[in-house]
């Protein structure tokens, strides 16, 4: 039972952390290496909000707002000219990430910050105490996943985004404002990443380089999922399970590399990864 909970909550965590990167890669075909920095910014909005005496819950909307705003600025100033030059985009976003981390270091110092946790304590699941916060993450991930599906399938923005994914030239010919779709997508991706940063604070240390340790896993997961939300969810579940099982039964040191190894294997055997078609 503990194993099952560990697996699902680990998968939920992986999903939350990679969702922002996934949105940007799925629609824009750009690998946003500033993703780690967005996570960090999100976590620091919790630091700022709680320092000002607000509840840490308020940092959730605040992070979405800050992330969206910075995402818009980044898209307009840096990413816009680079859509057709994806290698340059990697370089530019990587550089942006470095700059953001340095700015955070200068503002808040290198020290670790300790904002209060969103939820503390445990709940009994079938007689066994389990971290309430991890269970909350599970709920948060499911809500996030459902929201993705709804936005993609049921809104104008989602339909436009799908059109851009399939054939951008055709979409533009049909009168879809593709540059607006891109702007909004990038904002959304950044906002979700910042939100994930807030959700990480109760589990992780909050310091300027905190995002880096989550970047590689997120990157790998997005690579094997392509553009499908279902594929991302499935990948998180499979790799999360592998990570937990290897860590529990063999060694946590091996467990921490399972995601990377499995992604490489999956892409070698089946280049499209978990995405169909």
């Amino acid at each position, binding site marked *: 039972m503990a194993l099952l909970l560990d697996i699902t909550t*680990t998968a939920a965590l992986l999903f939350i952390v990679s969702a922002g990167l996934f949105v940007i890669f799925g629609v824009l075909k750009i690998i946003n290496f500033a993703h780690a920095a967005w996570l960090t910014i999100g976590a620091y909005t919790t630091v700022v909000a709680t320092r000002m005496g607000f509840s840490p819950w308020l940092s959730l909307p605040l992070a979405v707002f800050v992330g969206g705003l910075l995402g818009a600025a980044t898209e307009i100033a840096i990413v816009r000219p680079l859509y057709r030059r994806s290698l340059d985009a990697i370089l530019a976003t990587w550089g942006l990430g470095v700059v953001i981390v340095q700015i955070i270091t200068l503002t808040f110092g290198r020290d670790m910050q*300790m904002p209060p*946790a969103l939820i503390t304590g445990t709940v009994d699941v079938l007689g066994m105490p389990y971290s309430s916060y991890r269970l909350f993450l599970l709920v948060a991930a499911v809500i996030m996943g459902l929201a993705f599906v709804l936005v993609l399938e049921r809104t104008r923005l989602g339909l436009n985004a799908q059109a851009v994914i399939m054939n951008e030239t055709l979409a533009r010919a049909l009168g879809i404002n593709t540059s607006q779709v891109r702007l909004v997508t990038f904002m959304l991706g950044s906002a979700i990443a910042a939100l994930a940063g807030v959700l990480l604070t109760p589990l992780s*240390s909050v310091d300027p380089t905190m995002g880096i*340790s989550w970047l590689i896993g997120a990157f790998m997961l997005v690579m094997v999922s392509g553009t499908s939300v279902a594929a991302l969810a499935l990948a998180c579940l499979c790799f999360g399970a592998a990570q937990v099982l290897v860590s*529990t039964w063999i060694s*946590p040191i091996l467990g921490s590399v399972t995601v990377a190894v499995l992604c490489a294997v999956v892409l070698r055997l089946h280049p499209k990864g978990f995405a169909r078609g």
Partner: protein
Amino acid sequence: MKNAKPTCLCLLLATALVSGPALAQEGEPITIGVPVGLSGANSVIAPAVVQATQLAVEQINASGGILGRPVKVVVADDASGAAGAQTAYNTLVFQNDVDVLIAMETSAARNAGLPIVEEGEKPFIYSSFYEGRSCSPNMFVNGWVPEQQVPPVVEKLMADGARNFFLIGSDYAFGRGMLEFSRKYIEDKGGKIVGEEYLPMEGSDWTAILSNLRSAGADAVITSTAGGTPNVTLTKQLRASGISIPYANLAVDEGTAKAMGADGVGILISASYLTAIDTPENKDFIAALEKKFGGEMRTPNDLSTPQYEAVYLYKAAVEKAGSTETEAVLAAFPEVSFKGPRGEISMSKQHHAPLTMYLGEVQADGSVKVVAEFPNVDPGDQCPDL
């Protein structure tokens, strides 16, 4: 590189010339070289170490210096690693031609610096706690080694009824070294290790280890992670998992434990220095730091306080030897002692120091209470050949 050798030789020659009688003149300052990790892994802790050095030097100068000569400090950044240390030590030993090196550093930096110290024939006090068994005729150590830090923790936990221990660490030399020693010590004392798990230093997800801990039936958990991030992620996740057995942390400093707020409460810390030590020497030390640095003051800790005392130990050694000559100072080191914030310190056992160890427990208000005191804990046989 062809030109490097002659330059080096020249520097050596120059060193030989000046470090003779010329420098011993009245009124010439005595120079203390402080290689320290101002950047890199040690950058959070280094400012406190520099402040401790500056305070000691200011106090010594205000009371007439050493042998009537004023004292000067040269700080060099070693970037917390081996490559940076080579540059820093070369500069201090051969260019600045310091009289002594007193340094709190990573083990990598110390190992890189030692051959340079030996080549330049300088006395060297290493003021950091470390994994033990680093020996050099030129080096004396006044921080703790595992033989001194682990027993207080284990004894306290066992006295409180713990028999089954679970060990968790970061996968690197210090983390594994500390836990290996803990395992041996616990087993010698009749306890049992029910689990020992490691995560890479950059790992941040402790889920599986914590589930294993929960099902292992341990009475107490002892951790030794890398300082900083892994320490915090582990503590947060341990607390969130609802595991409530006694928790001793071999790698947390007082400041970090306090900063962890509610998650830090109840953590057992074993150290040779805690700010709560109730002696006049410690109170004066903290007051003097506050007066000198005001709002810029860094809280003194188990790395910066030994550095402060090391400067005074050097002073005592030079005064006993009657000169700053390396051989005489090295001969005097094991003989002298200094009563500082940590108590009476003397590097009398195979170049290491018997220390009074304190067991602290983090309280609900964030303070650290001294719950037990272990006077004069022996460092064991660190360097039997010296």
